[in-house]
């Protein structure tokens, strides 16, 4: 009986010319989004690889110079383009792509791609993820809003139930039938994405792609469940349609913006100028503790005592290297403090967004999608953190070289290519997928809650299913 009901719904959906036309338009849109993202991905990946190689070459061929001059010259870290960014660009268009790793300063990532877009980009970028998060749900709702309400209006619901099928089985049949039709209509789009991935060869992140497929399917299933519950409870198919459309517009377009702006009001970020002044102040005062000059003097005394000498020039090491290391210690502590505050504010904003996703499964899905695609805030943070760890290691190496290899008081000390080669270069390695999954716990819980609530609602609805239109 369930299968018969499912088959009937399946055929009904596929016979509807509007549904087929909608699916075709969707496929065309997805092809356009995929082609443009693919082309962009290829050129960006090439450009960043070339730039990274160029920076490495500039560093290794900078000639002989004082290691501290080299530290000020610095290197750049470029965020590589991850393959699934073509599917879901996430927050990356609004985050910087490169960081200058130089002496004394932890710089921000700069060069946000969004700075070079038109104002219309704020309407939403036409990505595959956007199409799947915004358009496909609309299709699911349109396909299923009349599943019960329409039949009730036409009087066929009574006939179907008279044939002996229970309301619960009919509900399951409709769910399976419409779901199967939706899957069939989405299959070309899915195949297109898989084909694009296959073109990447060994680089293709299959595990993440399959995870994404599973989450998106779960999301569509939730919406289908919601549409069937609303359809079964609505007074008419028109009422069901309007309710679902209003919900779709709210959860897809309104709530995310409201939540993001509420987050900003709750936890505002400092301006760049305020941030830099606070850092400079902390560095100048030695983080409010011992002033840098006193700290340097104390270290000098300790070293003189240790080596039992009377002046810096008698030390077996160049004290200038120690001074640079102390300056970096203070600077690093100040940057740690203020970056922690900045990231704390941004995290609180993200928490508000995440909390609001209880009202909008689309927001929960967006968070999971960005995580799995490697384009979330956390991934950007991971890239920036890795770059900073590299910068500190690089500065330490250069300071140590001055300390150990130059004579006390020597200002014309020069290091050469051998040292530049020893520093290595920053290569960003994306986090393993399991860490992304771990960060998805909250939004996954939201999706699970929606599923649970809808299943309870569906059970209650089929128990008291109205058969005759009011």
């Amino acid at each position: 009986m369930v299968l018969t009901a499912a088959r009937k719904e399946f055929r009904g959906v596929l016979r509807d010319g509007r549904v087929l036309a909608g699916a075709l338009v969707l496929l065309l849109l997805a092809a356009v989004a995929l082609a443009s993202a693919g082309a962009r991905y290829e050129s960006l990946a090439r450009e960043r690889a070339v730039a990274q190689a160029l920076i490495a070459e500039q560093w290794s061929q900078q000639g002989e110079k004082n290691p501290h001059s080299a530290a000020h010259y610095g290197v750049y870290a470029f965020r590589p383009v991850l393959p699934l960014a073509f599917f879901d660009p996430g927050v990356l268009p609004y985050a910087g792509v490169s960081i200058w790793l130089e002496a004394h300063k932890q710089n921000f990532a700069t060069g946000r791609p969004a700075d070079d877009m038109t104002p219309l980009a704020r309407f939403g970028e036409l990505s595959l993820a956007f199409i799947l998060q915004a358009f496909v749900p609309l299709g699911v709702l349109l396909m299923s809003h009349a599943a019960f309400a329409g039949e009730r209006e036409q009087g066929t619901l009574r006939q179907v139930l008279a044939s002996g099928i229970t309301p619960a089985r009919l509900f399951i049949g409709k769910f399976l039938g419409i779901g199967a039709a939706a899957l069939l209509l989405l299959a070309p789009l899915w195949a297109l994405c898989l084909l694009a991935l296959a073109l990447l060869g060994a680089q293709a992140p299959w595990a993440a792609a399959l995870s994404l497929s599973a989450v998106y399917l779960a999301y569509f299933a939730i919406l289908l469940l919601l549409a069937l519950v609303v359809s079964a409870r609505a007074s008419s198919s028109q009422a069901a349609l309007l309710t679902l459309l209003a919900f779709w517009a709210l959860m897809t377009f309104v709530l995310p913006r409201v939540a993001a702006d509420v987050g900003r009001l709750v936890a505002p970020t400092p301006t760049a100028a305020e941030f830099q002044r606070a850092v400079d102040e902390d560095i100048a005062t030695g983080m409010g503790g011992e002033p840098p000059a006193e700290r340097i003097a104390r270290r000098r005394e300790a070293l003189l005592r240790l080596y039992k000498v009377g002046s810096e020039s008698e030390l077996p090491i160049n004290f200038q290297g120690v001074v640079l290391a102390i300056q970096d210690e203070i600077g690093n502590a100040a940057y740690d403090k203020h970056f922690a505050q900045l990231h704390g504010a941004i995290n609180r904003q993200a928490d508000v967004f995440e909390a609001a996703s209880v009202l909008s499964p689309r927001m929960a899905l967006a968070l999971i999608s960005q995580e799995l695609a490697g384009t979330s805030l956390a991934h950007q943070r991971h890239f920036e953190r890795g770059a900073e760890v590299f910068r500190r290691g690089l500065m330490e190496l250069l300071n140590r070289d001055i300390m150990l290899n130059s004579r006390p008081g020597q200002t014309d000390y020069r290091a050469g290519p051998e040292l530049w080669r020893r520093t290595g270069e920053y290569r960003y390695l994306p986090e393993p997928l399991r860490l992304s999954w771990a960060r998805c716990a909250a939004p996954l819980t939201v999706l699970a809650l929606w599923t649970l609530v809808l299943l309870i609602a569906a059970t209650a609805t089929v128990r008291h299913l109205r058969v005759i239109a009011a």
Partner: protein
Amino acid sequence: MSPSWDRFAEEMRLLRREGVAPWALVGLLLLIAAAALNGRALLAAQDAASASLAAEAATLVEALAAQAARGVPAARDPGSVGFSVLTRPVALPQATLAPLAIGQGDLLPARYELTARGAHQFLVRTELDSPLRLSVGNFDVAFVIVWLLPLLAIGLSYGIVSAERERGVLALAVAAGASPVRFVLGKWGSRLLLVIACVWLATLLAGAAGGALTRPGAWILLAIWSLAGTLYAMFWFALALWVNAGTGGSERNATVLTGAWLVFVILAPAMTNLAATTAFAAPSRINLTTELREATEAADREAAAARDRYFFDHPEMQGGEMDKRAYFASVARSEQRIAGEMLPMLLAFDVQALRQQRLVSLLQYLSPGTLTYQVLTALAGSDGARHRLFRTQVLRFHEQWSRFFVARLDAGRDLTADDYARLPTFVFTEPPLAESLRQVAPPLLALALIVTALFAGALRRLRRLVVV
């Protein structure tokens, strides 16, 4: 009472009975007020930051002037002051309607901190914000008007004919001797009038909540803003009338109108952005980074050569440091050289942005949603044009600021307390109001033409209206 007024009053009674409609209208007003307050809060934070920077800079100038008067060398040295001590913050004042449409206002810099160093130093800096928030977009009045107003219009008009036909009311009215077209237009016009009144009231409310009413040109700008909102609402009502003039049921009409919303409000703007950024892709920021590095390296080599020449000329200084004046003269030359190479590259971004904007200006006619958004952001000064103008003026001012110090450095003149009083000041020259009006006139005219054509088409279709 005139028959038209009676019709309007009757329609309002019916709407009140529908339950949801009055709440939806009140909801729209509240959303607009909340969005305006939100925009105001965002911009207030920016204003406060600018004011704090300006106050801090003014205090520093005062302190330096006092030190210069006392003969403190560091405060009298134009190189040290201009290149490393003193910054001049410059800020873009908020446009009158800025709180109503944030647009690009939270992405493009509205504040720079200038020194005598090259312009490339401050042009590449960006503000701190959450990438997640930026990627989601702002909840401002323009969003409510462009995205949500059509949904309200659709909700009030999708069954303007079909629902009456389905309930048999249309047939009854015709049987009672009413003209079906007049009946439908009366109903349609009443609802449209209500929404238009709501748009004007909401704009006033937004102006007050956004703190815009007392600003210069506010009333003219708010009137044009309301006009844009009115034409946009009329478009959706005219489209609903056109769709309703067919034989489809309410459900089909609602689906068609939602599809139109998706196309005009979501798809067309996204495709327009995609077309503009693909056809006129911005130069590579990565290349900019590597070029900057090469230019800096070349300038550094030149500075090192200058240092060698200096020590050749001043052998008595060997083993020590260059005197400050010679050092800063060498810095000034390096900065000039780097800026000379970098500025054309940085300006190439503006050139591409202008090309993109020109293409958007052409393609905007494909969607009333894009047209309205363009008008609203242009009126609010958040479409990018005002920020580009600000940057152009800042670049001109920076030349003046830089020259002030370099000229004294080259002439070997120390800074005096009077010099501090004569420091160049930046004043943003607002574009004339007429320019904004010229900019928004074509899209407004286009909206009016689209509405007229659609309404005429709907009227023609209504003549063949199926009553039962």
